[in-house]
């Protein structure tokens, strides 16, 4: 394992993401605050205006806590590195990376994830501060953030697999968009997945998406035992391994169709 280039790529990606500092912070701030406000308004409407006392077994306070804590992990999930891959395949920019002695899929991820790691650090600090107000265990926040980061990798791996559609159809944009919509719904960032009726719970349980936001939030809020958490960490490890094999296979199968346009 050569750590030198990985570290350099991380540094480079961070410099690139923060080249326009003001914009960077506005983006982070805006993407955190807007969905949180929408959710809190929704809970307010249900409970204070609508007069409900519980929704899917959760009280008003519990839902507010869910929103506050899950917002931290929502910041960490995702990224558009998979869109970037697809665009590079379409435009031929991939050629610049294919000839460098690094794996293009990994390289793109490491460069792209740099600002996310920074954001994860920020969210961790905020989360630990928050844990004192909400009476949560700070070490659980730390573990939950770790799981969220693993979720970030899984999310990219799936994106990288789907992006190979661009080798065949020139575009993978719509495929990736559909995936992102599913993720928004099934990761638990819009609503707690406990809102799902019991007989449909298998839907979210059979994807890795709940590991991005819902899982970390459950652990941070103390809804998962440590044993349950380690079980989920193990599961995420299996997703990680399975997807990394699929990434290799899908790229090896598709790269022959690469057109390398331009030049």
């Amino acid at each position: 394992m050569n750590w030198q280039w990985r570290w350099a790529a991380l540094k480079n990606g961070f410099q690139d993401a923060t080249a326009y500092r003001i914009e960077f912070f506005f983006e982070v701030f805006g993407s955190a605050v807007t969905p949180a406000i929408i959710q809190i308004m929704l809970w307010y409407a249900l409970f204070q205006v609508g007069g409900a006392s519980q929704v899917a077994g959760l009280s008003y306070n519990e839902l507010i806590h869910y929103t506050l804590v899950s917002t931290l992990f929502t910041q960490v999930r995702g990224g558009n590195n998979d869109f970037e891959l697809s665009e590079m395949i379409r435009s031929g920019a991939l050629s610049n990376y294919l000839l460098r002695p690094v794996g293009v899929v990994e390289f793109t991820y490491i460069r792209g994830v740099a600002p996310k790691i920074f954001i994860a650090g920020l969210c961790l600090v905020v989360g630990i501060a928050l844990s004192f107000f909400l009476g949560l265990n700070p070490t659980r926040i730390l573990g939950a953030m770790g799981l969220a980061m693993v979720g970030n990798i899984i999310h990219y791996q799936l994106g990288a697999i789907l992006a190979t559609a661009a080798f065949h159809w020139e575009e993978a944009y719509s495929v990736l968009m559909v995936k992102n919509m599913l993720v928004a719904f099934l990761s638990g960032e819009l609503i707690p997945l406990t809102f799902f009726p019991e007989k449909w719970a298998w839907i979210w349980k059979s994807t890795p998406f709940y590991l991005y936001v819902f899982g970390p939030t459950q652990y941070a809020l103390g809804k998962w035992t440590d044993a349950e958490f380690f079980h989920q960490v193990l599961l995420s490890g299996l997703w990680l391994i399975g997807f990394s094999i699929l990434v290799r296979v899908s790229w090896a199968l598709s790269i022959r169709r690469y057109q390398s346009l331009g030049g």
Partner: protein
Amino acid sequence: MNSPNSHLVSNEPIISVRDVKRVFRSIKKAEGLKGSLQLLYKPQYSEHQALKGFSFDIKAGEFVGLIGANGAGKTTLLKILAGLIPPSSGTATVLGEKPFDRSLSFRKKIALVMGQKAQLWWDLPAVDAFDLLRAIYAIDQTVYRERLNTLAKLLDVTRLLNTQIRRLSLGERMKMELIGAILHWPSIIFLDEPTIGLDVLAAHNLREFLRTFNERERATIILTSHNMDDIEQLCPRILIIRNGELIYDGDPKTLTNRGQCVLKVRLMEKPTNEELAAVCSLNLSQISRPNGGKVPGADLPEGTTDGAAHVEKDDDDEFSEMAAAQELIYFNIERTQVAHILQPLLAKYRLIDMGIDEQTLESVIQRIYEQSPQTAVGASS
């Protein structure tokens, strides 16, 4: 290894190409909305054969120029040799490997520079990109400093290293791209129109650098360029590609044969080549008519050029109309023969106009392009 042995090894071809063909298949879209709809339910494919069977060898340390009109297949060939795309059939071997396998050691030893393609990150200054490349290739810090210094000084961009790439001019950016492409001191460099956008001095400096790099590091360099100065000054060997076919492989000097020139004439009469050969006492092979004589001679004086035959002109006296309609005749002769040929020619025929073309590489190449019009390019359904 003993020195005689290493000499032997270096005589082995470092690049070996055998009957390489490449076909591109693309979806054909008819015009307008109807075409878009048709694309959905019945996509039509068109195939284009970009390379039609190439074979050649290149030895370590050679400097080879690749010449061809737009769309001839130069970039396609470089992409195959660099390992970006596989050949449709045939085999290419570079550094003893199949380029398309792109093994780690292979990638560390080659570089591909594309003039029209940005490789660096636009929002960062060049030094940041170079530093990342240093880490990627695990280049020693002191060696890296030295190389960067040399390259930046040579291309005169030292003061721009800390400027965001997006703020640089086209030529300055090109220079940065070049530095980024060769920082790892590759043993094979593929250059696709590297002097595009460079000023005269920078192009000169780049040529000097490539020459030195080729000589001192024994790097193998393949270069495509439309600038014949690049080719003439650097390449003892050229490959000429026309419509995906390799039509010349050899020394450019053989093509430009010093002392040779082309006498171009247009006559009122219409003598056959045989008659002309007899009158001027030349070999039949020395007389030619470009493209059956139908192409207007681009090098002749104004008034008779640019398809004047089809254009209504203001001063449409009979003579110029007639002149434009006449065939252009090329005499491939020695410079010293010009007078000997003109005398009998003028005695027997009425001359409309004439011109002499020096045998520059440029003119030779131009004539080669003219010999087969590019109308054949396109779909071969």
